[in-house]
């Protein structure tokens, strides 16, 4: 069991780039110091807004060519958890008296890439269980705020690959995509038990409804982007004007799987005097063959006027994939033998999936005297995130600050600074986050080197 847990934990840590991408939103300390906003035409705006294909990158106005993260958090992590001793490390060893599942989950949700200046404290209040023949009450105390009232889960749409070539505003290429979304919803009775310390009732069913989908593939793409209106009085080298962009994707799904259904249990009567019945009754859809197909598109618009810039990009509009060869199975828990039976409900049937519509709206204002402010609103498939930030350059130095509203609708704060020495810059950014199983925020310190 021990090696399995270690392997699983490490695999999750290594294979969870989507989560840190959303949690830490960037490996660039400059962005982290501005609450997540990017004042350059990189990252999210180019990924979400096809009109930016026609707009010059802003390296020439202060942006670096690229940034290299300095993962101080990993240094500390491997100092605290020597790689040769991971098999015996209490963090990954459920058999250890010091094993703490909350700490492990916090590690998964908040990978230690950067240095954690302030760790979110694990709640440590007493938990009281009241047990009677026909009563079972769990009082989590202050920790009950951690019980989600609505659906909770993970999800994102990623474009793992985007290559192509173009001329005269046209672009032809191939995009690789992956979308996953896993959500869980506690039913009201179970939520009442865990959150409101209601007693477990006899002969009552308590469930968690799970709904998960993952799909991946590639999409040949044809796009066009151009400046359709040139700014009044703008010179030939001016960026001012109105830009439009659009792209059509022919989605060719490689594989997909979807599972949906409840898991839980039905209590006996009386509650503690009879054996409850476990419940699992899920439907699983899987593609037998690749090439689920469909069409969809992206559109974008950018307007630049001197120091002011605003853009809007929307992706995967109408992206519905049809899978012509799908297997539908039912997974059912069978009390006799404590086993799960798999029943083939339908085979070689057609099914469909959708890619969620994602978008970004962004704006930037260069105010002169080295001051730049900006903001964006991003939805990458599961909730909207808002970033607002500013940078003040003073010769070699830069000061940065910003705020954001994360996917859990909590306000987060970023601040930091940097120094640039010729082609090299060293940046430092601090960021508050709520990625842990805790009621209080943690603070991460990001460090990165920028190459100009």
């Amino acid at each position, binding site marked *: 069991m021990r090696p399995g847990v270690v392997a699983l934990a490490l695999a999750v840590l290594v294979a969870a780039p989507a989560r840190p991408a959303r949690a830490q939103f960037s490996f660039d300390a400059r962005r982290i110091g501005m609450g997540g906003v990017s004042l350059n035409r990189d990252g999210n705006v180019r990924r979400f807004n096809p009109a930016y294909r026609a707009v010059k990158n802003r390296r020439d106005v202060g942006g670096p060519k690229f940034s290299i993260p300095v993962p101080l958090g990993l240094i500390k992590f491997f100092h605290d958890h020597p790689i040769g001793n991971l098999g015996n490390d209490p963090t990954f060893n459920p058999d250890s008296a010091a094993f703490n599942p909350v700490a492990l989950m916090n590690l998964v949700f908040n990978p230690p890439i950067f240095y954690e200046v302030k760790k979110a404290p*694990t709640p440590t*209040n007493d*938990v009281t269980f009241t047990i*009677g023949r026909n009563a079972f009450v769990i009082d989590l*105390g202050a920790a009950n705020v951690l019980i989600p009232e609505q659906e909770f889960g993970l999800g994102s749409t990623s474009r793992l690959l985007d290559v192509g070539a173009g001329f005269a505003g046209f672009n032809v290429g191939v995009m690789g995509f992956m979308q996953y979304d896993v959500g869980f919803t506690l039913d009201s009775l179970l939520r009442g038990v865990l959150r409101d310390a209601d007693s477990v009732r006899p002969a009552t069913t*308590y469930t968690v409804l799970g709904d998960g989908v993952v799909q991946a593939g590639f999409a040949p793409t044809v796009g066009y982007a151009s400046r359709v209106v040139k700014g009044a009085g703008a010179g030939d080298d001016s960026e001012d004007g109105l830009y439009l962009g659009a792209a059509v994707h022919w989605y060719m799904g490689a594989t997909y799987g979807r599972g949906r259904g409840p898991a839980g249990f039905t209590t006996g009567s*009386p509650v503690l005097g009879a054996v*409850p019945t476990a419940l699992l009754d899920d439907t699983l859809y899987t593609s037998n063959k690749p090439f689920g197909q469909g069409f969809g598109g992206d559109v974008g618009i950018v307007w630049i006027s001197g120091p002011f810039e605003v853009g809007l990009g929307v992706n995967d509009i109408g992206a519905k994939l049809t899978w012509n060869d799908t297997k539908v199975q039912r997974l059912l828990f069978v009390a006799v033998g404590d086993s799960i039976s798999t029943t083939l409900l339908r085979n070689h049937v057609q099914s469909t999936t959708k890619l969620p519509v994602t978008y970004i709206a962004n704006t930037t204002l260069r105010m002169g005297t080295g001051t730049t402010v900006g903001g964006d609103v991003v939805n990458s498939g599961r909730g909207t995130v808002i970033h607002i930030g500013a940078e003040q350059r003073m010769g070699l130095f830069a000061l940065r600050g910003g705020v954001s509203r994360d996917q859990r609708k909590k306000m987060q704060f970023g601040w930091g600074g940097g120094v640039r020495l010729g082609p090299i810059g060293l940046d430092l950014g601090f960021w508050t986050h709520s990625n842990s199983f805790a009621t209080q925020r943690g603070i991460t310190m990001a460090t990165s080197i920028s190459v100009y």
Partner: protein
Amino acid sequence: MRATASALMVVAALVSAACGEGRAIFNVDVLSFIQPSGKDTLRYNVPTALAASADSFITPQKVSLPPGLGKSSVDSVQVTAAAVIDNTTGTGSIQFQVYFSKDSASVYTTTPYISSNATITGPQPSTVPLLPPTSVSLSDSVFNADQLWVGVHARVTKNAGAALVGRLRLTTLSLRIVLKDKIF
């Protein structure tokens, strides 16, 4: 019971202090497990006119506890008990004892966890409260288990005279088990 408690406690443990420095406290209403079978009442009847003694026992009753307790070390336990004697005729005294054990066979071979005495005097019928120490602090491996057996014993000692007839009725029997370490 196991599945119910396990499922709920796993969720609880993930968000609770059971994994941090907080304590997990289990308040167990033992009486609720005994009452439905009527074992919360011990009847006595010593008809002889001479002074005599008699013993009454309940069949050991099982109390199901959350499975996590079986893997834990118990920090402290408190037992709270109270009983009432409803005496119909006669005078004498009653000794009331409560036993706990990990298995049913050894319930009455162990030392009682709580014990109390009461005297029945004066006009009859009468109701006599039988109040052992409100709580007894224990630190015992008996409670480091996911099931527990409880027994109640009454030793009735009759004075010379009218038959001693009545019943002993449990009114409170509860446990407070405190775990300070992990429960999984």
